[in-house]
């Protein structure tokens, strides 16, 4: 199934994209997607604890179930204002 992954700030730079559709297996979660990204970008490991996940605009836990067509956003600590 397809999940649209959106990344911001330092996470975006490390994964190398701002937005990408990723083909994941059934049962995938934000944590499992993150883990697969870590294999390609090792520096992500240190950012896991501070990164929040949102699915279709709502914050979710790392073990939430992803569905086909979901938009998964990887959200680092904010710096606006």
């Amino acid at each position: 199934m397809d999940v649209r992954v959106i990344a911001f700030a330092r996470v975006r730079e490390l994964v190398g994209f701002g937005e990408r559709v990723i083909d994941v297996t059934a049962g995938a979660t934000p944590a499992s997607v993150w883990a697969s990204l870590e294999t390609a970008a090792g520096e992500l490991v240190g950012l896991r604890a501070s990164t929040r996940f949102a699915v279709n605009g709502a914050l979710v836990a790392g073990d939430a179930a992803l569905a086909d067509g979901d938009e998964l956003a990887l959200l680092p600590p904010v710096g606006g204002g």
Partner: protein
Amino acid sequence: MLVAAYIGLTSEPLELGALIAHVRTNACGAIVTFLGVARETSAGDERPVDGLSYEAYATTALPEMQKIAEEAEARFGPIGIALVHRTGALALGEASIAIAVAAPHRGPAFDACEYAIDEVKKRVDVWKREHYTDGATSWRANA
């Protein structure tokens, strides 16, 4: 007094006058505004900054800004409130955020404006990158 909060993200320079026009009514006796401005140095870092860039996730940022506006109204209302964050590249001295609050009296106008900026800095999905004069850059989270 809160008809509708005026909330936005924009890559254009922020215009305080437009925000004030949105919140001003004949029932308001006080208008307080806040501008966050790109500074030449950042707290705890002595490298000279020559610009900033901001990115935002509008999908979560806009509803969170709306929620902050509604919280400010619930706590300090009646108020009118406008809240716009800049995105993209900013030169030194340009405003990254503009907030305007109108209220019948000044106490709630100050309180609501300060509440709004405090909460934006904690909760809204916007990220800042500082650009230093030596060419380096750094993403800076709020403390």
